[in-house]
């Protein structure tokens, strides 16, 4: 049971108020700034690749709203997952487990920003993008955090969709709709998420076990996880090249993404081969780090080409 659920069952009259301890930087930490920066980047690429144009001020508003919406999801995720966060080494210093912000304060903060960002995007840019952002936040908080994360080892696969929506929301801010091209941007992040997180989960397995989160290595075992990392990597590589075949990226992108995809698969195969000891850990860490570089490079290349084409 999550901390939020436990608190609901408590007698509120007997609880002591221990809020008001959070500083501005603690609230900023609730927004998961590092995740937010990735969201800003991918949403911006989606916006730049979309056909048509958007006024720079409205474009800035759209990126701001998407970023705040992503931050709000992060705050709501920390509100619900405080019990998990306090037992995992990676997350124990987050504001709620550290006692700086109460779960109620985090919930209020997250909800205010969610509603604010959705309404602002709808009012100032377009309502399709606003509704899409609302759906993304709801998907991440309700479907992933509250429902799937604690109940299925496929949590990362389906939950990863929430992290893959921002370029589509960016695209929708310009066009007022979705298209096959923006769906491919979604697919790239969607297929990238499982090998990225499972590589991390393989060497942080103990943490997830302690927290009772059914990550794939904990539930299905390390061998099965290695199979799945390889399968997803093999599926990801051609999807990474798809923008070239669909005609909205150059041959340079096609060749570069092809090589990057091959390197991704080679590292996934390395994880599959090396199963014991320090070499196995190093292989996981290498793929985890490379996966971040891979995604960044794909989107940076797409962005670079759209900027060059725009000159």
């Amino acid at each position, binding site marked *: 049971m999550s901390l939020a659920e436990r608190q609901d069952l408590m007698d509120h009259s007997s609880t002591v*108020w221990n809020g*008001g*301890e*959070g*500083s*501005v930087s603690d*609230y900023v930490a609730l927004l998961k700034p590092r995740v937010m920066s990735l969201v800003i980047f991918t949403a911006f690429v989606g916006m730049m690749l979309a056909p048509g144009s958007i*006024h720079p*001020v*409205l474009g800035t*508003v759209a990126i701001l709203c998407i970023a705040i919406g992503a931050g709000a999801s992060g705050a709501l995720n920390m509100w619900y997952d405080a019990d998990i966060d306090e037992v995992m080494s990676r997350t124990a210093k987050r504001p709620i487990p550290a006692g700086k912000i109460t779960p109620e304060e985090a919930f209020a903060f997250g909800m205010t920003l969610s509603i604010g960002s959705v309404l602002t995007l709808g009012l*100032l840019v377009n309502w399709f993008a606003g509704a899409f952002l609302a759906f993304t936040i709801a998907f991440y908080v309700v479907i992933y955090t509250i429902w799937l994360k604690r109940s299925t080892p496929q949590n990362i696969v389906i939950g990863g969709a929430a992290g893959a929506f921002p370029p589509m929301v960016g695209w929708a801010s310009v066009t007022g709709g979705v298209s096959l091209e923006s769906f491919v941007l979604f697919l790239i992040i969607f297929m990238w998420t499982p090998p990225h997180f499972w590589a991390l989960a393989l060497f942080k397995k103990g943490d997830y076990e302690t927290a009772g989160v059914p990550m794939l290595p904990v539930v299905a075992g390390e061998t099965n996880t290695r199979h799945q990392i390889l399968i997803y990597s093999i599926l990801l590589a051609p999807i990474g090249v798809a923008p070239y075949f669909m005609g909205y990226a150059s041959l340079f992108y096609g060749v570069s993404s092809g090589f990057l995809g091959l390197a991704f698969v080679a590292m996934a195969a390395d994880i599959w081969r090396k199963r014991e000891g320090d070499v196995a850990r190093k292989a996981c860490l290498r793929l985890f780090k490379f996966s971040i570089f891979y995604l960044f490079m794909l989107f940076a290349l797409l962005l670079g080409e759209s900027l060059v084409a725009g000159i």
Partner: protein
Amino acid sequence: MDNNEQGIVLTDEQKKKRRSRSIAIAIVLAALVLLFYLVTIVKLGPDIMNRPL
């Protein structure tokens, strides 16, 4: 007088943090006002003076 009758009494540290949070909220609100003003200008564009009487 116990804590219940006084309400919640903030420590100096809590008061300091509340002040910095209040300043941050004020800055965000001011930025929002500016943003909505700017977007109004952008959306109306040159038509801003072109209104039927």
